């Protein structure tokens, strides 16, 4: 297993370096001069050129890449022409917000998709199954931001059950920064009201983010259960008179969830990129909203940092998912190594 994980880590690193070169190059051919977009329109040419030199944007692209790479190893992701400060500072400020939201959404997604999938798969062609399928169709076909807008208008505006945006209520101070994660910092400092307030704010955006993936994975688990249920070894297990609980959980469920786990991993990794519109609708001060706004301004360093962070998330989740799948199905591990 160690060799298997080591191999996965090595290829993830190769992929990330390749990704950084690719995005560095393409980030720089996007139309829109970042310096011109940063300064006022009548800024003299010599000032524009000085700024370009300060940020090394006048150098050949490969030199820029090596300067950037050197800085990355020193923990410096470059200057953002959008926020006008170090991208590292922006990442430190906004990434924890998005990761908190995604973690909450992932918990909802994992729990919901498994429960719904098993629920439907155990009641094929009954009303429970039809209901879950209806939910899945809607969940898969409607984008997360539409759920976000509906939730905002219904549960926040009309019913007033949830706040209309932000991560904390007005007047509720953020806990002192220890990890940058509000809920965790509040927990460490015993500020339980802050935790409750934070969860209250995060619930609607988290559910909106979770639904599309939840719907897709629930469908996959349901289908997996139907397919596996028709295998001979299941009939044999039943024929041997094994208790239904053991048949379902040990022989039916385990192989049924493998495709679901893989897709779930991808869905969670994709949330960071997909969270933009949901963060926008709920005014969630997260990384996705910041990153997209920066991209619209041709903020090269933020573009590269964002893609790399999303890439790293994909790599980590891929490794976790592959390891998990290998654990669930040992055949994959053997063939992989």
């Amino acid at each position, binding site marked *: 297993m160690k060799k298997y994980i080591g191999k996965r880590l090595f290829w993830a690193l190769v992929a990330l370096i390749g990704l950084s070169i690719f995005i560095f190059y393409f980030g720089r051919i996007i139309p829109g001069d970042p310096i011109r977009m940063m300064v006022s329109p009548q800024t003299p040419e010599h000032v524009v050129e000085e700024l370009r030199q300060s940020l090394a944007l006048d150098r050949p692209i490969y030199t820029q890449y090596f300067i950037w790479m050197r800085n990355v190893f020193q923990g410096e992701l470059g200057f953002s022409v959008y926020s006008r400060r170090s991208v590292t500072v922006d990442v430190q400020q906004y990434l924890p917000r998005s990761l908190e939201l995604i973690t909450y959404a992932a918990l909802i997604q994992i729990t919901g998709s498994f429960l719904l999938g098993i629920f439907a798969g*155990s009641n094929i062609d009954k009303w429970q199954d039809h209901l879950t399928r209806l939910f899945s169709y809607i969940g898969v076909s409607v984008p997360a931001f539409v759920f976000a807008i509906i939730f905002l208008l219904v549960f926040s505006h009309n019913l007033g059950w949830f706040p209309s945006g932000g991560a904390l209520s007005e007047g509720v101070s953020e806990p002192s920064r220890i990890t940058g994660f509000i809920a965790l910092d509040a927990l460490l400092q015993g500020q339980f009201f802050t935790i409750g307030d934070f969860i209250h704010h995060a619930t609607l955006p988290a559910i909106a983010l979770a639904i599309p993936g939840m719907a897709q994975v629930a469908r996959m688990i349901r289908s997996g259960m139907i397919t596996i249920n028709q295998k001979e070894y299941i009939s044999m297990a039943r024929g041997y008179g094994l208790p239904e609980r053991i048949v379902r959980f040990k022989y039916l469920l385990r192989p049924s969830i493998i495709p679901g786990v893989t897709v779930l991993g991808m869905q969670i990794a994709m949330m960071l990129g997909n969270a933009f519109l949901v963060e926008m609708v709920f005014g969630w001060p997260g990384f996705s909203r910041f990153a997209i706004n920066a991209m*619209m301004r041709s903020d090269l360093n933020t573009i590269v940092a964002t893609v790399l962070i999303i890439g790293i998330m994909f790599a980590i989740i891929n490794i976790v998912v592959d390891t998990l799948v290998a654990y669930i199905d040992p055949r994959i591990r053997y063939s992989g190594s």
Partner: protein
Amino acid sequence: MMLEKKYMAILIFFVLLISTVALSGCVDPDDDDDDVTLLRMGFAWPTDIDPATGSDKSSTVAFTNFYDPLVFPTRDGVKPWIAEDWDVSADAMTWTFYLRDDVTFHSGNEMTAEDVMFSMERLVTMGEGFAHLFAPYIDLDESEVVDDHTVSFTLNEPRGVFLPSLVRLYIVDKEDIMDNAEEGGDFVYQPWGNDLGRNYLIENTAGTGPYEVYEAVVEDHFYGRRFEDYWGQMADNAADEFRMLALGEAARERTLFGDQQLEVTSEWLEHHTVEDIAGSHNGKLGAYPEGGALYGMMHTQKAPLDCIYVRMALAHVFDYESQIDDIFPESVLPEGIIPAGLGGASSFDMPRQDFEKAQGYLEQSQYYPDIVENPEDYEIEASWTGAVPATEHVALMLAGDAEEIGLNVRSNRYDWGALIDAMYDVDTSPHIGIVWVSADYPEAGSLINSRYHSRNSASWQQNEWLDNEEIDNLIDEALTEPDTEARFALYEEVQEKIFDLYPSIVMHTQYSQHAFQQYVTWPHAENPEEYAPPAGGFSHDARLIEVLPHDER
């Protein structure tokens, strides 16, 4: 059957758990103090609160409320502000300002002439934001601090518009900035050897303004509280806190406004959305001018727009009235090429839709009749930016109207960055760029210079590429003229010359519209003709905006 029930039970438990945990925060925070009045305004982001680097709308609003300029813009020009009085030498090269002696910075430091000089030096050295108004003309070596409350600026050439330009010289706290300046990093300014507080002023303010920032989340909001030692007058019910929020998403603004968590909506929402928000929540609607206009900037060096008759034809096919009625009801028909309200703006008999006239002009064109017989060879690209979707309607309207006389105008969408890139080069500039441009200071000279002087051709504020030496010389002459009356006469002359060349379709004089709460009194938006200074950012002046206390609403 038992198992199904179990799954169902787990599902119900899961839903209840989420609901319980989520609703656990439903208690109002105890510090939502009813005695504190808030003025929360939405803005398109980003907002740069450093007066030496920012210059866009939300940044200038921040400057208005967190800083003080040397002089303040009015409907008629400028009025004393930090400078109580001033005089100018006979050659208009030396301007001496006598400063108030009762002004304190948020840090508690007393404001002196040293700070005013430093503010100018910092702006010019950094070269960004509004530096272009001063950097080419000021002689910092000859400028001096005369005494604690007198400062003298020496220019390297006469400049009549120096005084109105000073509405963009925001005074910063030298001591506070130098204490927090960073050495090293991407920006090191000489001879200072540090970043002149560039990094510090991203999240902090060092001003004397009526509000001081106490919470800054750069990508999301700036919260300011009333500065207790503010020297200036405030309205009786001026808000205790002024808050700038990054907004622009209609559903969220609607929700916040309906819940009275937003006093003023942001600027770039569609007109119908703003109207609906105000209508559904018993809000008020208001609009104010800021010295800006929407221009269809015609490239005078690109065929077929290099022919004045084609330009005249286009200026006479556009349906100005419908554009106002259907797309921008808050705005008004233009009276000249420079928005009325700016000092020295002239009125002209502006073109209105008249197909007969347009046809007549077109027939005089060197491209006629080929231009209507082979329209595919004479495609005219009307470019707009996706950042402002309403401009697409304008481009499509122009294309439809032009078709009536046989002209082939095609609407073309650009990303903002791509449009900026295109407009920096005479060869890549589109035939027509549809863009709003506003004045930096409350005089026609600001817009005439940025819109039509050839030194500013390579910018998104100009697509005409007039490159007309006579006009350049006249503009320069006007900008250097120290006598206001004489300067305005020169403005008139140059506007006539520009108008005769038909380089632009002046679509409307821009009014910015907002929905705001019933309990808010906003003089600039409710009575713009009296209160709104024609310069960006000054109408969001929280000094004069009143917010009723909670118990009086």
